[in-house]
């Protein structure tokens, strides 16, 4: 071993000389520093691939946003007539697509509110509880204010998307959706 370049030697993990190593390690010597170097370099490569995935995710969001903007104005859709809904009553409907379930509520004689039924935490269906003045999500016990849709308890951070309403000649129409971060 004398005369060999130091970094050409295998250095076992316990730091002792090769002669002091167990037989299995002498029979199957591994260049530990080189193995360390290669494993770290490969992990770095893997992390760069993860970084690429995050960047792809960002551009996917940007493209989804472009698609959402191109959709333009949402259609006007009839939901119910005023007489169909008693005070404190609720009616489920879909808007704007067939899988977007929403809830229309009558809170008093003249006030109607409508929100998306998907919880902003993990998209479970919320249920209205007018006696407790809230929408309740049974999956993780999240709660939203009945009048504003703002999160008031549990894991949800964003309010429920609000459906804009318009009343014409005793008929309630959905005219659009308003989403908020807080």
């Amino acid at each position, binding site marked *: 071993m004398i005369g060999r370049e130091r970094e050409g030697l295998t250095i076992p993990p316990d730091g002792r000389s090769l002669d002091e190593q167990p037989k299995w390690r002498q029979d199957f010597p591994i260049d530990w520093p080189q193995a360390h*170097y290669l494993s*770290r370099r490969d992990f770095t490569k893997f992390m*760069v691939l*993860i970084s690429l995935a995050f960047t792809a995710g*960002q551009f996917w*969001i940007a493209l989804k946003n472009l698609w959402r903007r191109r959709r333009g104005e949402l259609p006007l859709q009839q939901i119910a007539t005023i007489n169909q809904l008693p005070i404190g009553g609720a009616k489920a409907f879909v808007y704007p697509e067939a899988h977007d379930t929403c809830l229309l509520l009558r809170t008093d004689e003249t006030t109607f509110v409508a929100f998306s039924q998907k919880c902003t935490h993990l998209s479970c269906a919320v249920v209205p509880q007018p006696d407790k003045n809230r929408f309740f999500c049974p999956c993780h016990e999240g709660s939203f204010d009945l009048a504003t849709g703002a999160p008031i308890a549990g894991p949800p*951070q*964003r309010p429920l998307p609000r459906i804009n309403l318009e009343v014409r000649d005793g008929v309630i129409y959905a005219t659009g959706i308003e989403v*908020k971060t807080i």
Partner: protein
Amino acid sequence: MRRRFSREQRLTIVYGILCIVLIIAMLQLWLLMATMNAYLGGDESVIWPAAFVSLIGFSLNSGLLWYLYRMDRKQ
């Protein structure tokens, strides 16, 4: 003439690069979560700037990885 690094020096360099890559990847993860929250909340103003910042992060990471492979080729 460029200096060749010893194996110990290269291990130190790869540790340094790995630390930087990890920090940038964590920042990108945070940025992705914040952007997703903004997108779902209807806030569109941050989407494109966040995408370009993330692209810059990836460019830095791939530049560091390229340096690592170039260093290996020269040994």
